[in-house]
């Protein structure tokens, strides 16, 4: 089998699993998860084979794996779709395959496989636990099998997106994931909050999607193709797009198309101002959060703009002035990175902290791409996928442990609130150590964690190219990141338990701890492939493989930035400083956040996420509802258009009435009636003749006959 065939096969197993589970194995939980995990494993295996083949190929960027078939016959042409694995998609495939497989395995434990059915559990609500021998124990998820079907479809969407060789099938995968995130965020659909969150996620990302769709058709119209290689690897084409004026906002065609596509990413990767859906997406079960926020959907947004980078940056050359589109990206990315980090500082829910940190980290990548740091953005995408999946799965493990305590003690507390935790280090050692690794990677703990290397590179690039505003904003965001991460670790694992449930928490099953352990390995090791060559002491020990490999994706290989001590020192300072501060502030925390008093009003604003939900509701959602009901339906359709029709109907009615009363009745009916009446009168007269008596008839006949005879004789005789 050729590698190209293998690539075609990568997305298929999860799709088959989706149909198999829904159509056949739904009733059997064990079979269903075997099908699901088996499919993820097959895709993983295929993915690894492809990845190894890609790495083994020399000058892979110039000779990627590609194959396509005709899909849409249009006029004389055929629109083709196909698969493409180049260096960028190879590494994306690598991290997606790994994280997806881990998430699938983790889901078995998370949804309490092997536990009894709950006494009062219903589909559409989280399991409430079952009573066994007088103890309350966790119960299995009522829609266990269906969960695997949904995440399998999700995985299909992501694999499709990664292996696509064109924007259209990328968009197909993109939207299938959108549907799956809708289904999975709303997995516990009977909860009104989950239902609303699912709708919000779908609609908010759809705002971005319709712009992206325009970007796609604009690109197709301008170039006649959507194939990545044909557009992005063709300097002539890119120059043409960069020089044509689009007529909108003074942008070039490339600039406008890039901007439209980028808005798609703003929605999908939850960048300000379309970030509002992501924190609410935490309504879904934890593996979903990991799936959405690490391995797949939000990564897909950034992947797309990394993929389209040559187009987004058309007309720009390294070290030169940024294009308008790139400036927009740099601004939105940097702003989002800082903005989301500030909100994360005040959140109490362990998953929400991670949600905001995801928004913030994606901001780092977007900003990096905005300033042209292509490799760093891709690098951070990979490392972030590993450590953020690790953190989400870890937080799920924590919640699971605390939920166990809640069931045991019967306490009425929120098992996701970090202020109800504390001291879990000894109860859940595996979860603790792996979470610590993930947290440190997120904070950019120097040298050993992957997050350090990738984040440091973004800062170094911003500094080297003189984008000081971006540099400072991101540095500040990094400081806050380290701070809120340590706050989270301290509140959750260190100190003393702040609730009975936390005291009774215990380690989760192996199906959950194994995946986080694997991910922890990557959260450390994934950084080693991208150590800059001139880094003090250890630089050059390992080749900067990542830069060389991924750089090959572009037509012109990007240069590595020159090493400079200042960004490194800043990077070290913010990471260590933030971690230290976080520990110092929160080590003795009680149920009250120690920052609340000193921050005062600011804390309330942050806690309420700058009131974006409320503002959007007031200026978009409610007016749209009123517009739809009052204007579009009641006013336009019912009052104006139907009113007009009814007026015509009424006029016709009236006209009809006039005809009837003043013409029909007197004239038509009148003349008719007159004839009838006349006939009747004659009839009445004649009736007198018809008595029915034969003698009388005979008499009349005789009289007439004689009369006639006399008349005749009289005439003749005269």
């Amino acid at each position, binding site marked *: 089998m050729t590698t190209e065939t293998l690539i075609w096969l990568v997305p298929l197993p999860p799709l088959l699993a989706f149909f198999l589970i829904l159509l056949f194995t739904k009733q059997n939980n064990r079979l269903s998860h075997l099908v699901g995990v088996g499919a993820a494993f097959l895709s993983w295996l295929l993915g690894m084979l492809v990845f190894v083949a890609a790495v083994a190929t020399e000058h892979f960027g110039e000779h990627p794996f590609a194959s396509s078939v005709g899909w849409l016959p249009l*006029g004389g042409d055929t629109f083709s779709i196909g698969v493409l694995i180049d260096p960028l998609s190879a590494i994306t495939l690598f991290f997606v395959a790994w994280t997806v497989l881990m998430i699938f395995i983790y889901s078995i434990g998370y949804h309490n496989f092997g536990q009894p059915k709950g006494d009062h559990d219903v589909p559409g609500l989280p399991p409430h636990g079952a009573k066994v021998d007088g103890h309350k124990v966790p119960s299995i998820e009522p829609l266990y099998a269906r969960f695997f079907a949904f995440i399998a479809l999700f995985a299909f969407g992501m694999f499709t997106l990664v292996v696509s060789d064109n924007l259209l099938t990328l968009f197909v995968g993109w*939207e299938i994931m959108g549907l799956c995130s809708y289904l999975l965020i709303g997995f516990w659909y*009977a909860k*009104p909050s989950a*239902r609303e969150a699912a709708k919000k996620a779908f609609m908010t990302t759809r705002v971005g999607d*319709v712009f992206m*769709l325009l970007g796609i058709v604009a690109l197709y119209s301008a170039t006649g193709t959507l194939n990545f290689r044909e557009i992005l690897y063709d300097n002539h084409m890119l120059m043409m797009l960069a020089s044509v004026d689009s007529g909108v906002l003074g942008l070039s065609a490339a600039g406008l198309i890039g901007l439209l596509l980028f808005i798609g990413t703003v929605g999908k990767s939850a960048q300000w101002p379309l970030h509002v859906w992501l924190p609410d997406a935490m309504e879904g079960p934890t593996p979903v959060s990991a799936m959405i926020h690490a391995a797949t959907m939000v990564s897909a947004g950034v992947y797309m703009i990394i993929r389209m980078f040559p187009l987004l940056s058309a007309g720009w050359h390294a070290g030169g002035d940024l294009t308008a589109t790139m400036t927009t990206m740099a601004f939105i990315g940097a702003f989002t990175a800082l903005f989301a980090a500030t909100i994360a500082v005040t959140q109490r829910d362990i998953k929400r902290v991670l949600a905001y940190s995801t928004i913030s980290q994606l901001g780092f990548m977007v900003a990096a791409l905005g300033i042209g740091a292509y490799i760093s953005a891709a690098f951070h995408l990979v490392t972030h996928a590993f450590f953020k999946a690790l953190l989400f799965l870890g937080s799920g493990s924590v919640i699971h442990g605390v939920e166990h305590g809640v069931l045991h003690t019967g306490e009425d507390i929120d098992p996701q609130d970090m202020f109800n935790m504390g001291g879990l280090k000894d109860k859940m050692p595996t979860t603790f150590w792996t979470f610590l690794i993930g947290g440190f990677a997120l904070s950019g703990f120097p040298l050993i964690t992957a997050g350090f290397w990738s984040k440091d590179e973004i800062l170094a690039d911003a500094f080297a190219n003189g984008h000081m505003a971006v540099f400072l904003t991101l540095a500040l965001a990094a400081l806050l990141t380290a701070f809120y991460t340590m706050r989270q670790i301290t509140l959750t694992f260190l100190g003393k338990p702040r609730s009975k449930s936390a005291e009774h928490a215990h380690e989760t099953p192996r199906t959950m701890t194994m995946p986080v352990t694997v991910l922890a390995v990557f959260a450390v090791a994934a950084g080693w492939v991208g150590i800059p060559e001139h880094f003090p002491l250890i630089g050059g020990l390992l080749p900067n493989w990542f830069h060389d490999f991924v750089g090959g994706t572009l037509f012109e290989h990007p240069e590595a930035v020159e090493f400079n001590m200042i960004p490194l020192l800043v990077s070290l300072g913010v990471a260590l400083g933030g971690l230290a501060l976080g520990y110092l502030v929160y080590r003795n925390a009680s149920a009250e956040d120690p920052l609340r008093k000193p921050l005062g009003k600011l804390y309330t604003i942050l806690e309420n996420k700058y009131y974006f939900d409320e503002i959007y509701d007031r200026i978009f959602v409610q007016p749209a509802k009123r517009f739809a009901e009052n204007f*579009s339906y009641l006013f*336009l*359709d019912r009052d104006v258009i139907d009113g007009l029709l009814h007026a015509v109907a009424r006029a016709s009615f009236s006209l009809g009435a006039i005809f009837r009363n003043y013409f029909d009745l007197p004239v038509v009916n009148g003349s008719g009636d007159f004839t009838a009446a006349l006939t009747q009168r004659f009839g009445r007269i004649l009736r007198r003749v018809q008595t029915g008596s034969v003698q009388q008839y005979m008499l009349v006949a005789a009289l007439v006959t004689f009369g006639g005879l006399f008349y005749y004789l009289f005439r003749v005789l005269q």
Partner: protein
Amino acid sequence: MTDYLLSLILFTPLLGGLVVMLLPGENKPLVRRVALGLSLIPFLLALVAWFGFGNAPEADGFRYQQQLTWYAAINSSFHVGVDGLSLSMVLLTTLLTPLAILASFTIEDKVKPFMALFLALETGMLGVFLSLDLLLFFVFWEIGLVPMYFLIDQWGSPKGERELWKGMKMPSRRYAAFKFMVYTMAGSLGLLLAIQMLGVVSGTFDLIVLFQSWPSLTGSLFGLDIAQVKSIAFWAFAIAFAIKVPIWPFHTWLPDAHTEAPTAGSMILAGVLLKLGAYGFLRLVLPLYPEQAHQYAPVLALLATLAIIFGAFSAFAQKDFKRLVAYSSVNHMGFVVLGIAAAAYAAGTESATIALNGAVLQMFNHGISAAGMFFLVGVIYERTHTRNLDEMGGFFPLVPVYGGLLILTSMASLGLPGLNGFVSEFLVVRGAWPIFTAYTALSMLGLLFTGAYILKGISKTLHGPLNEAWNKKNLPDINRRELAVMAPLVVLMIWLGFWPAWLLNVINQAVVAFFG
């Protein structure tokens, strides 16, 4: 057989209707089954036509042609024939009719006339697609109205009243049937006059001749400049078809008719009848009035955009589930018209070809998904006897299979990539973008709110806490017969999303040959 295949397809339903009338009316199961069986014959014949299409002899771009003397005195003949455009519509019609009949097995009232009318309706619709003679076209155009009028008026939803003006009230279904009938007839009036004018001037009603002679006609007519005459005739055609599609602002009959019609009636209304209007634009307006179509295309595009936007908003405003789905047709047919307008404006360009491909494919796709949506709404209505979304909620655990189907069909209707609707919407948007950039961009607002009303429908019925009024007994899951109705539709939604080439090939050939 290829000589009279189309006549067979065309008249079997009508004959079937007569056969049904001869059956004993008290034996309802027999009547239903016979009607279903008879309606499958044209479908099978259409399949024969479909698979033999490439090999059938072709003349002037049309295959399976048959021409018989009919109205010799005025040079109108019984002339039928198909190309890819009409054949795909014939396939859609003959597929949806049996499904709609199967969907109406629950009708208990006057079963015999219902089925007979339904079959007669099929002949009316097929005739429009098959005719290659203007007068014949018009005859079938009008014939289809009558059965539908009675279907709505007699078997429509029994509840509800509509106030026309103060003191003037009417039962909703009577109002809807009347509005549907009178509105369409009003449009037909101009159409008939214009057709007669064409016939008189050209001395024939044969379309193949008219396609050649009419657009190139110069000079003056009736003391007017020919361009003026053509403009007037163009609008006579355009308004008749615009009402049928319907294009905003001629659309208000649609929500009433669709909502009040029985389930099967709504399926056919949305699935096929709306396509008659779009088909009229494609088959008659564009080829007969290329210049006028180009001239007035921006108006058409504007109205299409308004249909897309206001259709979506009005759907979002509904509390009545069926009315919500009805308005979605306004929204989706807007894309068909946008594609047609774009093609009319830039005839012969690559974008025009793409837009036309998209428009025709969208007609087919909308037929599939709208019929599915109306059927699913009907399934819920038969169980709960309400269409009010506020009285529903939390149905998913009670009806898991139904729920899955509703989500899938809704997503197809929304145009989710991977399902059928996306391909056609994408092609329309792609085709229209370089031609009507601003309108295309504006229509995205409608696409956004498509999401809003689709999700509203799903979340108000399936999601949320269970409304206590419903339980497993009064709300059982979808049954086998209902599954059988949905199965072909679901297969097509997925198949056309995954591999649209089998249908698009045929459409594309026709588009290239007919408009190229």
